């Protein structure tokens, strides 16, 4: 039915316009954003736990590591971190692969301003499909997001663990619990109530930070909105004036919806974890 776009009119034209291959890529890119959120949330939470436990560790070097991690991420603008991590990781991986896969190459990796590794060490390999490149870029982006948000989560979790009243822990010890039992049975379950406001806030910031994917060269919703919304001359199948405002308005609706659903979810979750707390929901 969309055979010749120039013959279409009104509503039918719009339907056909909105179902072009590029538009389907645009719709898929929403899934990329949602996929990033779903992948990063548990990763960042795990990094956060690791960081918080490191900061509280009895072992001094671990404490240093935890503080270094959280302070470094806190002190460096997110944007710089997002740009730095994928490049740095990429070069690190390629360097390691270069040493393993091409031991016969003796030329230095850094040649002047160039970073040169052998073809077999390239990530992804030069002859890899486009989708491999996309997935690789996406994974790198996930790692960058997880590192940054993990550091914030580590601070939130560390603070929440401290916020559990000492009396509750002392009572556990008075009843013979080991430090480990005290942590798992009392401190950790009570921690959630203190951590959740901070963590839900972080989630909102994470949602709103997803357009940074665009900066990492991933074809995300911002990329496609710009691409599709721009002025299209008569050379195109579906010529139209500059519609970027409409496309970006659609993105705003998407983000508003996402944050609105998130908020509902966190209100429910907050009620759950606060069961029994003085002043908490019952």
């Amino acid at each position: 039915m969309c055979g010749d776009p120039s013959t279409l009119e009104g509503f039918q034209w719009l339907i056909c316009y909105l179902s072009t291959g590029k538009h389907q890529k645009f719709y898929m890119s929403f899934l990329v954003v949602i996929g990033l959120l779903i992948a990063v949330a548990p990763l960042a939470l795990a990094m956060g736990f690791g960081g918080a436990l490191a900061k509280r560790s009895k072992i001094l070097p671990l404490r240093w590591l935890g503080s270094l991690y959280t302070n470094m991420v806190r002190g460096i603008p997110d944007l710089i971190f997002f740009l730095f991590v994928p490049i740095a990781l990429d070069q690190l991986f390629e360097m390691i692969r270069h040493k393993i896969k091409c031991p016969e190459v003796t030329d230095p990796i850094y040649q002047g301003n160039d970073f040169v590794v052998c073809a077999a060490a390239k990530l992804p390999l030069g002859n890899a499909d486009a989708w491999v490149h996309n997935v690789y870029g996406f994974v790198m982006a996930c790692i960058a997001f997880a590192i940054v948000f993990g550091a914030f989560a580590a601070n939130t979790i560390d603070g929440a663990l401290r916020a559990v009243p000492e009396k509750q822990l002392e009572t556990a010890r008075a009843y013979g619990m080991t430090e480990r039992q005290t942590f798992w049975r009392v401190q950790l379950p009570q921690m959630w109530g203190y951590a959740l406001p901070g963590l839900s806030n972080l989630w909102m910031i994470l949602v709103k930070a997803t357009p940074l994917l665009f900066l990492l060269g991933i074809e995300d919703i911002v990329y496609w909105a710009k691409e599709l919304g721009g002025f299209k001359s008569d050379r195109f199948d579906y010529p139209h004036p500059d519609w970027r405002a409409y496309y970006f308005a659609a993105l705003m609706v998407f983000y508003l919806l996402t944050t609105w659903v998130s908020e509902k979810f966190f209100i429910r979750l907050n009620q759950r974890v606060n069961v029994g707390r003085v002043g908490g929901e019952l």
Partner: protein
Amino acid sequence: MSHSEVILQLSGIHKRFDELEVLKGVDLTAKKGDVVALIGSSGSGKSTLLRCANLLEQPEQGDIVFRGDAVKWAANRAGRAPADADQVRLMRTNLSMVFQQFNLWQHMTILQNVMEAPVTVLGQPKDQVEQRAVQLLDRVGIGDKLDKYPSQLSGGQQQRAAIARALCMEPAAMLFDEPTSALDPELEAEVIKVIRELASEGRTMIIVTHDMNMARDLATEVIFLHQGLIEEKGTPSQVLDNPKSERLQQFLSATAAH
């Protein structure tokens, strides 16, 4: 009485918090069936002494012997610390504490609070512990509150739940740290009733209290602490009705006044 087993013996206990010396060499012995009441004004060191008994506070000097087993110490930078964590835990599981502020675990229901330590620490089977916990909660009069959270109960109900939690450990002795001080008078009565019943069963108890009536009615021995030292001790009638020292006389007339 003289032949009954010594449950807990503290001797020459010294405890300081930074510059402040709270206990300056205190002895305490609790034999099976004893109810020892520790009285004294705030700051006299009576709560600290109780907390030394299960090592929530660690005295710098002095010996603690639980059922003939002396606490082992190891020197460290701060002075000394208990050397054997398992020994400390064994003591603590046998000396259940009831706190002034109840300290029920806020994220657990009343039943879970009572079951927690027997299951997690003593490793007893859940169904068996549950049966005992339900009976104990019934006994302290809150059998209908099993699934409530601590914040949903009155102070008196919370303290009775805390007593059930202590009893569920089947301890050798119970340590009460001002169990009624945080309660309104009408709620106080229901907690005192429970403690009274426990005393009449011949349970070994050490009670820190402001309540002279409770001390008089329940105690087999009353110890009056003043500025970190035992000023006077004896039977309730000796200590409370015929105080010899001037400080104890002042203390008793001050507590009688309100």
